[in-house]
């Protein structure tokens, strides 16, 4: 336990030191980023040891907090979530060191680093805490630290609005967690997690499960509680978006999975529910992503989609668990958890890439970008790796976790009765559709942003980011490729994690899945060899021949301009039109000129469904109810004093009664 506490200490102290150096931006960045990297390097060692089969470690100290105890534990499940936390936090810190330099004259960087380190430390503590009070304190620090990070550019009204939406949404989630822990605590007689296991009888267990789904699901970003994601991710600085989307939302997933270890074998409808939430989140997430014009907004909706995929994995696992089909349960859980790590890698990479694009081209509007791969070759190549990975295509890591979920669902779908087979075949169809749409969305994102001709002056003047921003992206891209090829080693090593959740040995099943993944690695290797051969063949064929260059074929039109290129909106239009009833996209078309065409204007805007259909009506109703009490707020001091006196008299009389 000592190395982990040491890591936490280093991270927190470096944050405080960075805060004290607030008027020296370069120094405070060095301290903040350096301390985070050092702390993460120290902390990742015990996590790896436990995952490799080391013993679970725990530490329990007395604490003067009522009902609280400082009880932390590092078991395979915690270690599995800590791995991406440490890895991505360190890389994002390095990236942030350079990214924030742009603000060194206009902003104080000390607080930014202070909150960054506290965000990292609180995420570590969330994964380690084994006492509800400690957990909730860490959870709250995490929410507050990320709130202040989102509000970094608080001089912009849009950013202020986004950070408040995030603040409200995340606390609504926490509001569901409190009663859940209280129910657990009341039945177990303690708020320590080790007393929770198997303590709840059935109707209460289901209520707690629903509360956990809403509470943790809000943080994770399941539909319809996802409203804060498309607001907060674009507003935050990019390395923070990477951290929030890559791992902070996964703490919600961690919470749900940790809750699952407290229950007995779940009833079948839990699995149905989780799977349905997963399919809906995945599908709507990718559809809303397709309709976005903002590059970081698109990535934020893809986080919703990927959380949906992880939920689908958990749902398949739950269905298999309650139907007593171990292979389905193990493959679903393993696939969902593996996707947690994979998503952290490629989404972290993509957000860092989007940040580089934003700093280079000063806009996140996809339709104003283009041709960046020539100006920013490294960012472009890394973003491409992330795009292929997130589209779930071989040979990268995204395919492997989706493969496991597919395999688990198909196993159940081809062998079980209708109550199990129907949801599972739904998962297969849903995942296939989500995969196809994700490929559409990332051909759009990469193709319009990086390929073609620049669509604006700022995009044409873009330059490659500095080495400290490129290196973390390159490392993440390398990790995506490495995981894609090493799946056959990684998945069998997850048996401790899955066994810890399900309670029966997952080793043999995961070893078999590892066999399939080995064949995939063989196919991927074959693919790479073929690529090399064909590339050589092409070079050989073209050597010594005439290779000319010309303009793109334009049907003989003589004066093409970059503005005539296909835009992201037009690329996605067939899909957004087809699913128009779900998206509710608003169009505004203004044609100028009466007899001859003049200046025309066309704009589309897709409002978030969760915000429009759930949050806005609820909050409007609350506001309308509260407005009735405005009569009391009239501003006359003597009447306020009178009402205070009246209240006191009433209370006194009530007490003396």
């Amino acid at each position, binding site marked *: 336990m000592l190395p982990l506490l040491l890591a936490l200490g280093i991270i927190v102290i470096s944050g405080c030191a960075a805060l004290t150096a607030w008027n020296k931006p370069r120094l405070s960045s060095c301290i903040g980023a350096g301390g985070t990297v050092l702390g993460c390097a120290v902390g990742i060692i015990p996590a790896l040891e436990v995952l490799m089969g080391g013993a679970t470690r725990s530490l329990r100290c007395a604490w003067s907090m009522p009902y609280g105890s400082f009880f932390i534990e590092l078991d395979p499940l915690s270690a599995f979530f800590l791995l991406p936390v440490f890895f991505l936090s360190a890389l994002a810190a390095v990236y942030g060191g350079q990214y924030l330099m742009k603000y060194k004259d206009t902003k104080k960087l000390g607080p930014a680093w202070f909150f960054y380190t506290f965000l990292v430390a609180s995420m570590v503590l969330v994964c380690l805490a084994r006492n509800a009070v400690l957990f909730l304190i860490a959870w709250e620090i995490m929410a507050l630290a990320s709130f202040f990070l989102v509000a970094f550019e608080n001089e912009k009204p849009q950013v202020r609005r986004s950070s408040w939406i995030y603040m409200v949404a995340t606390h609504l989630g926490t509001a569901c967690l409190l009663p859940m822990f209280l129910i657990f605590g009341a039945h177990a007689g303690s708020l320590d997690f080790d007393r929770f296991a198997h303590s709840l009888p059935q109707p209460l267990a289901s209520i707690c499960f629903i509360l956990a789904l809403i509470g943790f699901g809000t943080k994770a970003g399941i539909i319809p509680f996802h409203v804060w994601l498309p607001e907060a991710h674009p507003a935050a600085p990019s390395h923070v978006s990477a951290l929030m989307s890559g791992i902070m939302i996964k703490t919600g997933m961690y919470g749900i999975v940790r809750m699952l270890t407290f229950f007995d074998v779940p009833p079948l409808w839990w699995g149905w529910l989780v799977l349905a939430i997963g399919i809906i989140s995945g599908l709507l997430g990718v559809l809303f992503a397709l309709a976005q014009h903002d590059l970081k907004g698109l990535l934020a909706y893809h986080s919703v989609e990927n959380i949906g995929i992880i939920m689908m994995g958990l749902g398949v696992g739950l269905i298999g668990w309650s139907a007593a089909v171990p292979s389905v349960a193990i493959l679903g859980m393993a696939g969902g958890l593996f996707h947690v790590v994979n998503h952290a890698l490629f989404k972290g990479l993509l957000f860092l890439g989007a940040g580089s694009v934003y700093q280079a081209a000063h806009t996140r509007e996809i339709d104003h970008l283009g*041709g960046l791969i020539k100006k920013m070759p490294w960012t472009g190549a890394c973003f491409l790796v992330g795009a292929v990975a997130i589209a779930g295509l071989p040979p990268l890591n995204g395919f492997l976790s989706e493969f496991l979920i597919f395999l688990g669902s198909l196993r159940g779908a081809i062998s079980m009765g209708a109550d199990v087979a129907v949801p599972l075949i739904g998962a297969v169809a849903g995942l296939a559709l989500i995969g196809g749409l994700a490929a559409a969305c990332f051909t759009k994102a990469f193709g319009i942003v990086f390929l073609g001709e620049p669509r604006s002056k700022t995009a044409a003047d873009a330059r490659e980011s500095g080495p400290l921003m490129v290196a973390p992206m390159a490392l993440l891209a390398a990790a995506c490729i490495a995981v894609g090829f090493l799946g056959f080693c990684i998945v069998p090593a997850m048996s401790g994690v899955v066994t810890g959740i399900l309670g029966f040995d997952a080793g043999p099943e995961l070893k078999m899945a590892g066999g399939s993944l080995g064949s995939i690695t063989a196919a991927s290797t074959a693919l790479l060899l073929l690529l090399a051969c064909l590339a050589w063949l092409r070079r050989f064929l073209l050597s010594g021949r005439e290779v000319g260059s010309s303009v793109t074929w334009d049907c003989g039109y003589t004066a093409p301009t970059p503005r005539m290129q296909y835009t992201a909106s037009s690329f996605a239009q067939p899909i957004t039109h087809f699913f128009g009833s779900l998206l509710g996209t608003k169009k505004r078309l203004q044609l100028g000129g009466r007899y001859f065409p003049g200046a025309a204007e066309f704009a589309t805007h897709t409002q978030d469904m969760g915000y429009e259909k759930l949050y806005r009506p609820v909050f409007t109703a609350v506001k309308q109810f509260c407005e009735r009490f405005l009569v009391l707020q009239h501003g006359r001091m003597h009447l306020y004093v009178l009402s205070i006196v009246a209240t006191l008299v009433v209370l006194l009389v009530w007490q003396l009664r």
Partner: protein
Amino acid sequence: MHLEAFMNIFFGIVFAPLLAGIISRVKARVAGRTGKPLLQLYFDIYKNFRRGAVYSTTTSWLFRAGPIVGLAAALTALAIAPPLGSAAPLAFTGDVLLFAYMLGLMRFFTVLAALDTGSSFEGMGASREVFFSALAEPVLLLGLAAVARKAGTLQLSELLAAASATSPELVLVLAALCIVFLCENARIPFDDPNTHLELTMIHEVMVLDHSGPDFAFIECGAALKMWVLGSVIVGLVLPGAGENAWLVNGAAMLAGMFVLAISVGTVESVMARLRLLRVPQLLMTAGALSAFAFILVMR
């Protein structure tokens, strides 16, 4: 592993371009023309391999990488598509998924290469391609899942071998897969490979700017894609003739593929292409067929 496991790879590489020749010959005959030579695509590929190339100044390395990735992915898919009567060299539990996603990888890079030209036409084709294939992918997997449930296995070769008995479910799956086949290979009623208006094309418009060896790679890749998807359909219909009858299996495989090509030619001769807005409806119909087949198998 027997040598006959590699039969489909050999057949695919040698005979894949012949399918396009057969299709156009059938269409010509129905229209009362003589038609181009059966081996025309071989001549085209040979000619393109011997040429130099012209690149648009807009393009980047991705434009050059697209055809290479596409062909490599198609060749890998070919190693997963099983020959009649034996397992493919790359056969494992769940190879169905790798098969579908390899074709997805091919499409991803073809689309990116198209977008790299900055042409509106190619953007248009790319946009249609990703939309239609996103709808086609669930159909393919649902259909194969129905067959897998019947066969009780998730390995493509075992699954197709067990499916060869005729049953109402399989007829539905077959219909759905044939629709996917036409869609994925850009045939009528989805796309007309011989149309002359860039605005209406899907696949052909995406590769407008490729030339020389790059274009030859694309033609090879497209022919192979038709072959691998076709061999799944043929494997579904024809029963294998046991382990050692490789001569019979090989002949049956080739005959099946040629019959498939003739049927595609016939479909193309008697049908017009659909309006683009109607295409999703046809794909949804195919999806309904697959889902219905799965329900039937679940009885």
